[in-house]
């Protein structure tokens, strides 16, 4: 009942009832207290009065003095409420009474026990009058009127009630004022909560009034509202976010209930399946599945709900979805289960993986092609020749890509045609049909190949639609799609890879790209193979030239030594040569024998000089300028056989070894162009080698013959010079190396230079060297010399013996006394005036002296290498004094100087040692003539 009244009134009621009750109880307590107090006061009063009267009346009673007793009682006049008083004797008889005027009826006839009694609006008291506390003297009776008391009590009560009423009125107004302290904040709170509850507006705040519990409650409510507001905002935001995420998710999200009915279907799902949310909401999700899945789906759900066994939930699986248009597609499905208020829902996350599948397939194909590319690349890397590379490429493509037809053609840019180089094994029969077998030529017209040979990949989806001959040729063989990939090396097309299939548009972009890349690899491999070959060649050349350089280096070092040796030998044989020639010329009385000996000596000297010259050639860096003359090889061969007779016959015979010589010289052998001494030396070397190869004897054969060889439509005749033995022979390795300088099988005995010199001679004569040998069977050296086509000169020089027209005045300077002596003597014999000077310094001094004295030298002959002042200095000094005087340098280094064009300044001519008398005469004559003209002016 109280519950439903407003709290304002409730509070007031409470306050009023409390204060009213309190006041009432207080009043009652007060009145009761007053009543009680009044009565006890009356009792006390009457008791005191009684005791006083009793005490005062003891003597009166004791001594039976009623007058005195009355007197005592009369004192009660002062107490108006005492209406009756009486003393009774110990015998119970009324002894005295007050007031006297009243009748006896107001007094009890009999005495009673001591005590008080309220009765009839009066208080009565009985009291025993005692003397000395133990001696009873009589009884006192007092009666006090109590009506005054009750009147007073009534008055009190009236006052209390009035006060209560006033207090209640005040309390009412106070309560009205005070209740607002409670009800106002409460109402404010209530209003706030009501407003919040009605509008769900959590931004509202209750007004805070004071800091009491209501204030705290308000604060609590406000903070709660704030929290709720925040939470509500967060919830709203997160809901928004979730909704946005769901709607924009890249996956389709479908939510179904326990019966498989669709509840939610996001935009992506709509896009994937083609249904709108409205079309599928409330329908069974089976709608989105192809029949084979749809039939079992309800069973799946109920089975899961029954057993809890998860097959897709939380696991994910690739399944097939069905679009609105009935088409199916692969999709990834992930299902999560949500329990909400005891209801289970399932959310499926769907991703259309068609594209991914295609990518995967494409990727797989790409991987396969990559593997194929790898295989092919590896295979080609192992091969070095083009044919093999092309073959492996074509076969791999045919087999693994696969292709119906594959071939590689080489491109001839000049002839503008392709040559089929490699055709796949399986394509062979088709190639026959297409007339595209290996080595077949395909003309390049505007058939697509023209673009290909410009470096572009050509892809024809259907060749049957192209009316040019080549495509039509392929189409006739049943082929439809074609890829022609250029093979490029250094930006130039050198070939075309042709791949074809019977299907129209049979190549994917990936395959075309693959073929393009493959063609690059193939081109690269082919190019590499070519480069490799070139590299091999270059390496071989390099090795050769390296060998040559090495050889030259070695020979150069040897030549340095040989040069010094040659110089000394030249100097040493100079007198021999001079004297021999002089003897033969000026001694007509010589016996035939002496003359023959001298001629042999002369020839030997000449050979020595030539040998020395050749020694110096070891270190030449360029081809020596041979003075080629026409030579009869038969003569040379016989000469050498004679010269080496000691070696091939005499020396072996000493140790019981017999070497048989077989010679076969072709008669009327054509002359060859050559240097006699070189050929002689080479032949000597060959014979020596043959002898060395036959330590146990055998047959040495020397053969000359002529052959005619047809080469490049030109008929050439060659003269062959063969030296063969029946000795130990050479194995293949030795045969290959035997021409290398310093390669020897003779150990310490051999220099390793013999065959190298032979080879050098052969090269210098544009001849060819052929070696046949096998171990134990002997060796054959065959030298093929081209025949001398044009006969320029006679083999024999018919030089008119030139000599100076007049005797000359000559100054001969040398540091070798023997040369000075021999030269002086020879020249004097020719009739010249010769002055000799020993050494450069002496020569210059003599010349100067002669000049000073008016003397004159027609020619100065000086040695080059002399101590302190050499030939160069002498020449310079002489030219400094007399520039017109010719200087003839006579040197053991002469050949070298000539060869190197190193004719020192101030030197007019250079002659080698040993000087030939004829040559000397000729030079002197020439010099004298050149000088004679200016001299005549003198």
């Amino acid at each position, binding site marked *: 009942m109280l519950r439903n009244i407003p709290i304002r009134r409730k509070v007031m009621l409470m306050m009023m009832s409390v204060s009213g009750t309190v006041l009432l109880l207080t009043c009652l307590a007060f009145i009761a207290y007053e009543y009680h107090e009044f009565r006890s006061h009356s009792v006390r009063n009457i008791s005191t009065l009684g005791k006083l009267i009793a005490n005062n009346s003891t*003597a009166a009673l*004791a001594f*039976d003095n009623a007058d005195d007793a009355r007197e005592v009682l009369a004192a009660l006049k002062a107490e108006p409420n005492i209406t009756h008083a009486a003393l009774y004797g*110990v015998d119970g008889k009324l002894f005295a009474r007050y007031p006297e005027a009243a009748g006896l009826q107001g007094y009890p006839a009999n005495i009673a026990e001591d005590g008080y009694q309220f009765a009839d609006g009066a208080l009565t008291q009985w009291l025993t009058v005692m003397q000395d506390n133990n*001696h009873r003297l009589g009884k006192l009776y007092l009666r006090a009127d109590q009506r005054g008391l009750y009147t007073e009590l009534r008055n009190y009560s009236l006052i209390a009630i009035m006060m209560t009423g006033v207090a209640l009125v005040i309390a009412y107004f106070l309560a009205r004022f005070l209740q607002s302290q409670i009800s106002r904040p409460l109402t404010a709170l209530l209003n706030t909560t009501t407003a919040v509850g009605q509008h769900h507006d959590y931004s509202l705040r209750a007004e805070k009034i004071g800091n009491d519990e209501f204030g705290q409650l308000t604060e609590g409510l406000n903070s709660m509202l704030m929290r709720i507001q925040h939470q509500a905002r967060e919830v709203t935001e997160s809901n928004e976010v979730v909704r946005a995420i769901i709607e924009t998710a890249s996956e389709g999200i479908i939510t179904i209930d326990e019966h498989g009915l669709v509840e939610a279907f996001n935009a992506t799902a709509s896009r994937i399946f083609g249904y709108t949310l409205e079309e599928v909401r409330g329908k069974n999700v089976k709608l989105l599945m192809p029949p084979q899945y749809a039939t079992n789906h309800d069973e799946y759900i109920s089975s899961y709900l029954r057993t809890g066994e998860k097959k897709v939930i939380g696991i994910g699986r690739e399944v097939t979805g069905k679009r609105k248009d009935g088409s199916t597609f692969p999709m990834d499905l992930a299902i999560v289960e949500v329990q909400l208020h005891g209801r289970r829902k399932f959310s499926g996350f769907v991703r259309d993986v068609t594209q991914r599948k295609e990518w995967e397939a494409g990727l797989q194909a790409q991987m396969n092609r990559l593997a194929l590319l790898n295989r092919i690349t590896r295979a080609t890397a192992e091969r070095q020749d083009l044919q093999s590379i092309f073959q492996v490429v074509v076969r791999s493509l045919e087999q693994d890509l696969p292709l119906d037809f594959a071939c590689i053609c080489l491109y001839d840019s000049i002839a503008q045609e392709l040559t089929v180089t490699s055709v796949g094994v399986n394509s062979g029969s088709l190639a026959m049909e297409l007339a595209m077998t290996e080595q077949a030529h395909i003309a390049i017209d505007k058939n697509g190949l023209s673009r290909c040979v410009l470096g572009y990949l050509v892809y024809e989806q259907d060749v049957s639609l192209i009316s040019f001959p080549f495509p039509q040729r392929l189409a006739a063989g049943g082929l439809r799609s074609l890829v022609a990939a250029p093979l490029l090396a250094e930006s130039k097309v050198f070939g075309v890879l042709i791949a074809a299939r019977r299907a129209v548009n049979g190549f994917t972009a990936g395959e075309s790209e693959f073929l393009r890349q493959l063609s690059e690899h193939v081109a690269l491999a082919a190019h590499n193979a070519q480069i490799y070959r070139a590299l091999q060649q270059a390496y071989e050349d390099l090795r050769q030239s390296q060998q040559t350089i090495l050889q030259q280096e070695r020979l150069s070092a040897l030549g340095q030594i040989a040069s010094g040796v040659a110089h000394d030998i030249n100097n040493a044989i100079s007198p021999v040569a001079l004297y021999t020639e002089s003897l033969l010329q000026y001694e007509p009385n010589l016996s035939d024998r002496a003359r023959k000996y001298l001629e042999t000596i002369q020839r030997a000297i000449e050979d020595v000089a030539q040998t020395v010259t050749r020694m110096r050639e070891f270190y030449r860096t360029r081809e020596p300028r041979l003075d080629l003359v026409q030579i009869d090889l038969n003569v040379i061969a016989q000469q050498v056989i004679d010269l080496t007779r000691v070696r091939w016959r005499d020396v072996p015979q000493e140790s019981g070894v017999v070497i048989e010589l077989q010679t076969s010289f072709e008669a009327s052998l054509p002359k060859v162009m050559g240097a006699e001494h070189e050929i002689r030396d080479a032949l000597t070397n060959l014979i020596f080698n043959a002898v060395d190869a036959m330590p146990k004897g055998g047959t040495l054969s020397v053969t000359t013959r002529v052959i005619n060889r047809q080469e490049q439509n030109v008929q050439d005749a060659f003269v062959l010079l063969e030296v063969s033995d029946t000795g130990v022979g050479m194995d293949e390795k030795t045969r290959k190396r035997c021409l290398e300088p310093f390669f020897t099988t003779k150990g310490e005995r051999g220099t390793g230079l013999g065959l190298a010199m032979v080879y050098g001679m052969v090269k210098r004569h544009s001849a060819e060297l052929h070696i046949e040998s096998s171990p134990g069977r002997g060796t054959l050296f065959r030298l093929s010399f081209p025949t001398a086509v044009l006969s320029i000169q006679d083999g024999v020089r018919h030089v008119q013996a030139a000599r100076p027209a007049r005797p000359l005045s000559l100054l001969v300077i040398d540091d070798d006394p023997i040369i000075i002596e021999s030269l002086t003597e020879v020249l004097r014999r020719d009739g010249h005036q010769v002055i000799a000077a020993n050494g450069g310094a002496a020569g210059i001094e003599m010349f100067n002296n002669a000049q000073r004295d008016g003397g004159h030298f027609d020619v100065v002959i000086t040695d080059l290498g002399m101590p302190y002042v050499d030939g160069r200095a002498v020449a310079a000094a002489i030219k400094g004094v007399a520039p017109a005087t010719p200087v003839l340098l006579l040197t053991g280094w002469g050949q070298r100087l000539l060869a190197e064009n190193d004719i020192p300044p101030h030197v007019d001519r250079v002659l080698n040692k040993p000087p030939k008398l004829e040559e000397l005469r000729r030079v002197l004559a020439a010099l004298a003539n050149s000088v004679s003209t200016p001299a005549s002016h003198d």
Partner: protein
Amino acid sequence: MKRIVRDLILLMIFACPASRAATSEYQLEAVFLFNFTQFVEWPATVFERPDSPLAICVLGEDPFGDMLDNIVRDESVSGHPIIINRYRNASMVNHCHILFFSRSEMQSFKPVLQSLKNSSVLTVAGFEGFALSGGIIRFLVVENKLRLRINMIAMHDAKLEISSKLLRQAELIGHGED
């Protein structure tokens, strides 16, 4: 118990109208004698010990019979038990606190009074001239009521203190007024 019995006896005495005429005066006098013990204070020196008996002596012919004995039986005053001593001869009087002179002593009481002067004995008698002659309390009958006359000088001489209540009941005189 004793008190109840005694009260009953007293009640019987006062309630007996037949004997009243003859005995009422003595009876009353006996009661008065006992009542004097209640309203008079003796100097402490008159008691040898706190429980020394207070003696009411009757000199001469005893008019009370056993009334007095009955009245004082088992009574005590401030710890002093009350005893009754009867003397025939004045010379035998010894050790009294209240001395009642019987009418028989009307002629010879004066020397006794003289001898008891300053001896703190409350002297009581019912015959004429007693108070005037130096006796302390005299019973007299006025308008048929027994009344008292007290000689204040004698009282002072006897060094007794008589309660004002008692004094208020009595006629107070000095010497020679009787």
